[in-house]
């Protein structure tokens, strides 16, 4: 049986208390929400915090508030709660789809939205036991000095593997970060760095407390996820797209986000710029797919061949845009997602 290393355990009741603990412990402490990412990492000795600070007992992190102007989601809302919440079907579909496609039903009952947004970047050279990593003399992300994905690289190439971040970026989401000295709101699109080691701008003393999404009334959104199996697997490529389309079919606003193709979710700016003011049709979708796929730079550190993942990027953008256009792509969706739900 794999065992956790020893740790000190703290269970604050308020956000304020939690912020105080993090401030005192510095990088030695890590917040624990659903535990589905952190505990495996601890068992593999990838992350060995001295202190685990449970967020489970902080009431204010568990709310879902849906208002006219938008929604506020506590960081500890579970992915199952989001997937099951009918309010996310209108405009926020991409978020519900992303949440419902994470891992397995059991994990979605445990894993939280905040945890999925803070998910450690993943890599086949990193998500391994201590003994395995020792056999390759470790890697740049942990205990070593070579990135084995790209041995010449000065930077860690571990992959952003969150499902909800691409969806929420497409929906223009923000996060509220709270520390002992104050709080700040950050556009989710600005939360991540394209660096597998230093992948998130959340400071060690900050708690990701809340996710805010403005009302997306009049928008349509969708999320496509590539993985080998119908469950368990992390995305090895994902496409989130959200658009506001006028009654005459002209795109007024659109965001396309490529997930799991770099150390952070990638916003396909050129594709979006190209689409605004146009209608969705075979030609415009094809052009947007080319522009969007261009930014994806998958590497050989996840499941599937990297050049094939790149190839599928364009196809997924096409499926996503066709879906927003109103095409029936249910059979493609069912085939790739291996599920009929959502």
């Amino acid at each position, binding site marked *: 049986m794999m065992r956790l290393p020893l740790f000190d355990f703290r269970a604050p009741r308020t956000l304020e208390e939690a912020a105080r603990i993090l401030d005192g412990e510095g990088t030695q402490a890590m917040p624990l929400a659903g535990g589905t990412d952190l505990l495996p990492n601890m068992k593999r000795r990838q992350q060995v915090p001295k202190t685990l600070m449970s967020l489970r007992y902080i009431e204010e992190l568990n709310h879902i508030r849906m208002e006219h102007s938008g929604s506020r989601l506590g960081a500890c809302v579970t992915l199952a709660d989001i997937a099951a919440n009918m309010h996310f079907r209108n405009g926020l579909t991409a978020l519900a789809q992303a949440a419902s496609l994470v891992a397995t039903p059991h994990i979605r009952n445990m894993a939280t939205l905040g945890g999925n947004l803070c998910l450690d970047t993943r890599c*086949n050279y990193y998500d391994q036991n201590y003994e395995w990593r020792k*056999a*390759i003399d470790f890697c740049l992300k942990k205990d070593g000095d070579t990135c084995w994905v790209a041995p010449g690289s000065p930077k860690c190439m571990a992959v952003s593997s969150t499902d909800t971040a691409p969806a929420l970026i497409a929906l223009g989401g923000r996060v509220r970060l709270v520390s002992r000295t104050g709080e700040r709101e950050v556009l989710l699109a600005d939360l991540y760095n394209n660096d597998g080691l230093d992948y998130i701008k959340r400071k060690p003393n900050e708690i990701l407390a809340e996710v805010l999404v403005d009302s997306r009334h009049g928008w349509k959104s969708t999320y496509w996820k590539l993985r080998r199996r119908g469950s368990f697997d*992390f995305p090895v490529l994902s496409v989130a797209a959200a658009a506001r389309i006028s009654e005459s079919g002209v795109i007024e606003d659109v965001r396309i986000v490529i997930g799991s193709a770099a150390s952070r979710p990638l916003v396909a700016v050129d594709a979006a710029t190209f689409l605004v003011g146009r209608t969705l049709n075979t030609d415009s979708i094809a052009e947007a797919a080319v522009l969007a796929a261009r930014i994806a730079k998958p590497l050989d550190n996840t499941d*599937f061949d990297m050049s094939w993942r790149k190839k599928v990027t364009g196809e997924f953008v096409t499926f996503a845009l066709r879906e927003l256009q109103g095409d029936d792509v249910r059979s493609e969706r069912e085939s790739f997602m291996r599920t009929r739900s959502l």
Partner: protein
Amino acid sequence: MRVIGVPRRRVDARAKVTGQTRFADDIVLPRMAYCKLLRSPHPHARIRKIDSSRATAHPGVYLVLSGKDLPIEYGILPVSEDEQALCVDHVRHVGDPVAAVIAREELTAFEALGLIDVEYEMLTTISDPEEALATPAPRIHDYGEEGNIHKRVSLEFGDVEQGFADADEVFEDTFFYQGNTHLPIEQHASVAIKDPEGKLTIWSSTQTPHYLHRALAKVLRMLPGHIRVIATPNGGGFGGKSDPFNHEIVVAKAALLLDRPVKICLTREEVFYCHRGRHPVLMKFKTGVKKDGTITGMHLQTLIDGGAYGSYGVASTFYTGALQTTTYHIPRYKFQGCRTFTNKPPCGPKRGHGTVQPRFGQEVQLDKIAEKLSIDPADLRLRIAESSNAVTANFFRLSVVNLSECIRRVVKNSDWKEKFRKLPEGRGVGLACSAYLTGAGLPIYWNKMPHSGVHIKFDRGGGVAVFCGATEIGQGSDDVLAGIVAEVLGLDTFDIRLYTGDTDLGPVDLGSYSSRVTIMAGNAALQAAERGRAIIAEAVAERLAIPKERLRFADKRVFDSAAPEKGVTFGEAVRLAEARFGTIGTMGSYTPPKSPALYKGGGVGPSPTYSYTAAVVEVIVNPATGWITVPKIWIAHDIGCALNPTLVRGQVEGSVYMGLGEALMEEQEFRRLPKKLSHALVHKFPSMLEYKSPTSLDMPEVMTELIEEPDPRGPFGAKEVGQGPLLPIMPAVANAVYDAVGVRIDEVPITPEKIMKALAEKKASREPRFGPSHFPHVDWPEALRVPPPWEGGDGNAVNDVPRPSKPKPEKEKVLSS
């Protein structure tokens, strides 16, 4: 029949659905200590020095063992005893164990591993068979053929060149089958104790308690009679728990030294290092056919990646060529196989042992042949299918063969004639067939004793206890025993108590491998039960004053079949018999019939009878991405007699599941880092997450049909079902992909990337195919020439060196699994 053939609750079901089945890791004993193994981080190295003093001094640590404590070599086959429980001076793959820590807590043992200092001297690393052929030194083992070649075989049954000369068309194809692993959900675990008398008892998740018993006696230098092995129910085996393992030997030694119970439960990563899974095999098929599809000759070459140890590898090597002849009539057949050592966890027997890879090649090649000859692939197979009671070119005696009926059923059920080459682009169907052994005809070590024994004890209260070494690995071996005994004695299966998998309590059964339990333990049980019935019948007939032939055993009574009200309860019947003859206990045993394959190597492949399977797989392939989905599978299996149809169907569907995993996604893959930067050669993903086992969402609907014509060799006519139905799935998927999008994937697994690459070839008007194109040069030995039966052969090779008059013990013979 009231029990046999009736779908029913398996005898051990209640324990399984209540969580009461006691798997090895569920065993907790007072004062129990925990063991962890320190494993080599290097793929190939000499051990210069091991210093465990810091670990020994660590609080909570009871004992540290290293190679010198257990130096005696062992291994499943007497011809390749090349393993040490802890490596003494040579590590051969990442994960090879070098030391063990036994401590009060498992966490303590794990942490103390980091306190053992090992100095290694790196050796050149060999990652695949081609490299092994090109790198004779350093040798991974100092035995075998030469260099890093473990085993080379060459057999020719009839003049195959003449076969090709007689052909209208000759086909040459190369295929690659990637390695994969069993992935039982239960990780291997063992608990050992020194019992109060000072003897050793070990509970272990093993499929082969008898072979573990032998290995323990050898390595620990103990009398076998002082060792008791209890195989706990296995949480899945599939062949992965059939070798004696280093961790089993280590906890046994530790328990003896410490005089306290010692447990080990492997982590998932360690299970990947135990491996013994499917060998990666490169294959070259050359097949001659007449215009009507008749095969005139076949030449098969296999190059096998054995990994770091022998395991069952010698048998595996023969198996890659043994069963080609058992499905279709092949008048002339040449087989050459070569297994090399590489610095990776050892390969061994996985469901379908050694026959799965060449079956893939043969069935895909037949699909190509059918297309070239413009014959429907189902019709082609019907023309060439082997028939009952045939003796094959390589002298395997077949029994009942219902392959043709299997083909007809899947063709009908799948609506094949309306689908094949008629579905829209992107959809396709593929068909494939197979045959598999019902038990290996020879044991793993040379002996003339029975392969299985059953002892039945009749209690005067009417209780019946069955004792047998057979091992329950989920396949239902306990239910087979209970079902047969219950049927013969007219009881309910739940009236029977089973004591199985225990080397102290039951007579030897060789283990749960090679699909042997139903036929061997089943026949032994049948014999023991019939002997018991005869004794009881004698006493009851006397009491009822009727001829014993008129007695019937049913509904827990023994009665006059002419006047059913006249009779006694089963309990009364036992009491009558016990009063008349004394305490009642009977024995049964089973030894397979002698095989006509007398040539060297002919020990691998003979079986009392063979099962047959045909399958049709439907696929949908997205032409833009190569993404493949399987909506439905139809399968028909020639079972002889389904002892418990519920379990038989479960074995068929489970085989389809595992086959589909192999076909589409499962891979035991390795990664070598850039050589100038690193020495590393590691398993790419030793985890449940990255080793892709299909989930409930990935599994299609399976339509199973059982063909039941009783086989005279099987108990109540039963044949095997645990392995055969896996074999046709991979080639049927490949053939269906061709039907869907017109590309050949001559490699397993069949992934979207490979389909895309083949589609790109097709688009560029090149050969629409993905797969290997070259087979490296191997210095094959001169073939043993065995004239087939129709050329007057007697089963011996004509050019073999004469055998010694007396068979030498053990090491002389190549035997089977």
